[in-house]
């Protein structure tokens, strides 16, 4: 009896080992993709962060220069222009695309015939590459061959629409193209929100004699504000990381008039060969993004807790 215990334990161990071996493929299937994904995210973010503190130029080198790359980057004219542009582009684009999206959603919510076709029309730009749409808008907005030329040829010869080559207005061409491309997304989310408004609420307001305008202002729109926050955050995230659209539409010009942070990162990393400076710019981009995303995450957390308690 006394000897049987370790023997049983030994076979148990062996069985566990065999069992473990048999479950190895399953273990690998589960963990390898997840670890690759999670691992590269953490490792790459830390890696870029680390490079931003080194004196790397053409190749990554070790060493520590503290915040020097950050102070140098923020002192460059390029970064300052890019940051100012981001403020203009971000607020203009988000405001206009939210308003356009909301207007479209309300219009489509009026039991319109052909709603599906119309919805597809407002959403198709999202399926197309920013390189394609940026190229097309660069033609339309080019005063020599686009809209201005057309109107001039039609007889209105003093008509001017040359924002694309106007240093002060060029950033608004990016706003136009971006609103055109992604307001359909805001529309889709708002429409889903409008469709989920409580029917009883609407009926009660109708019984109270509320007209359509009052109905929207007092009853329906107030229920949409959580969706509005989500739309704003997603559109801001897009604005902060915008790259392709600018490359295709203006290339960052005229001069540096349409520089955005993502273009500065690329420029320093791969065109000037200043890796550490570029990495610092990337980290700054991430910080701007976090300034938007962290409050949003906290807000979502609070909302969830509230609805869990209710």
């Amino acid at each position, binding site marked *: 009896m006394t000897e049987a215990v370790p023997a049983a334990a030994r076979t148990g161990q062996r069985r566990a080992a065999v069992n473990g071996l048999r479950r190895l493929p399953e273990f690998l299937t589960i963990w390898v993709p997840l670890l690759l*994904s999670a691992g590269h995210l953490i490792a790459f973010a830390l890696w870029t962060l680390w490079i931003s503190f080194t004196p790397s130029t053409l190749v990554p080198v070790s060493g520590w220069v503290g915040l020097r790359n950050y102070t140098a980057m923020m002192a460059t004219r390029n970064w300052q222009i890019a940051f100012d542009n981001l403020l203009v582009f971000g607020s203009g684009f988000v405001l206009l695309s939210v308003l356009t999206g909301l207007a479209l959603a309300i219009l489509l919510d009026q039991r319109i015939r052909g709603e599906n076709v119309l919805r597809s029309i407002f*959403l198709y730009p999202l399926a197309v590459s920013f390189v394609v749409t940026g190229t097309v808008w660069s033609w339309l907005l080019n005063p020599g061959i686009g809209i201005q030329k057309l109107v001039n040829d039609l007889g209105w010869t003093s008509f001017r629409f040359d924002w694309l080559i106007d240093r002060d207005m060029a950033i608004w061409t990016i706003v136009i193209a971006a609103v055109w491309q992604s307001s359909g997304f805001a529309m889709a989310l708002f429409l889903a929100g409008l469709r989920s408004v409580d029917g009883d609420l609407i009926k009660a307001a109708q019984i109270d004699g509320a007209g359509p305008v009052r109905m929207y202002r007092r009853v329906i729109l107030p229920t949409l504000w959580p969706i509005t926050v989500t739309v704003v955050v997603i559109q801001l995230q897009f604005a902060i990381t915008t790259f392709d659209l600018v490359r295709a539409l203006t290339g960052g010009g005229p001069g540096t008039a349409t520089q955005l942070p993502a273009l500065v990162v690329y420029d320093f990393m791969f065109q000037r060969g200043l890796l550490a400076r570029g990495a610092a710019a990337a980290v700054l981009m*991430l910080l701007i993004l976090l300034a938007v995303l962290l409050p949003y995450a906290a807000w979502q957390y609070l909302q969830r807790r509230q609805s869990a308690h209710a």
Partner: protein
Amino acid sequence: MRETTFAPSRMLIYLLVLMIAAAYLVPLLVVVLNSLRTAEEIAQTSMIGWPKQWAWGNYLVAWGDFCIAQTCAGIRPYMLNSALVTIPATIVSTLLGAVAGYAVSLWRFRGDRWIYGVVTLGIFLPQQMRLLPWTIVLRDLGLTNTLTGLVMIHTIQGLSFTTLFCRNYYSAIPQELIRAARIDGAGFYRIFWRIVLPLSPPILIVTVIWQFTHIWNEFLYGVTFTTGQQQPVTAALIALSASIADIPQHGVQSAAVMIAALPTLLVYLFGGRYFVRGLTAGAVK
């Protein structure tokens, strides 16, 4: 507000909607028409106009003839590159995402929550934070300027989205179903094949369409990690505009743009419903 008589207010609504719809269609219409006009015709008038003679030849030139940088083989090789990157990366990332989503939502294992949380952070981490590490990893693996390298990058990065989509979808499958199957002795793979996969077609379509569209349209990695003949079509379009800026060829260029946009436009035309579902699923995470 919901009556269907043709009051003036309803006429106004239709007028507004149709006008905005027209504005959304104009850029597409302009490219399609330009792709069928000759360069001389465009130069004489503007980019906006009806073709006087239909220049179908633009498409042939765009597809196989004109020069991008130093090579004169049209857009065909770059379309092929994009296909060779997009198709494998879409399939592999979707399959891996389905298995990962299943493991995280139904199989459950120690640490599943936190690793899933980290994986979904990939939706928010900007590509700019990964550019240098990928450059170094590609160099060390000897995959610089190869399509294989791009496939690898898009597969690993895509996992964030595919896992999220599938995990959210599978969460609706009752846990009891899985528990009962496990008591019957079914293992990890068997449950996946027999129970989870047969329920998956809707989410797999959403995921495939999402991945295909995003990888096909991707530009930053394409232009950073490949050069010349190895570039995907988005990068080639930019190179094209740069290389023919001196002698504009807007007809041929429009045809090239149309060809490059066609795969995702077709996917949208036939799978629009699923595409939109992917958009909103990513949003309300």
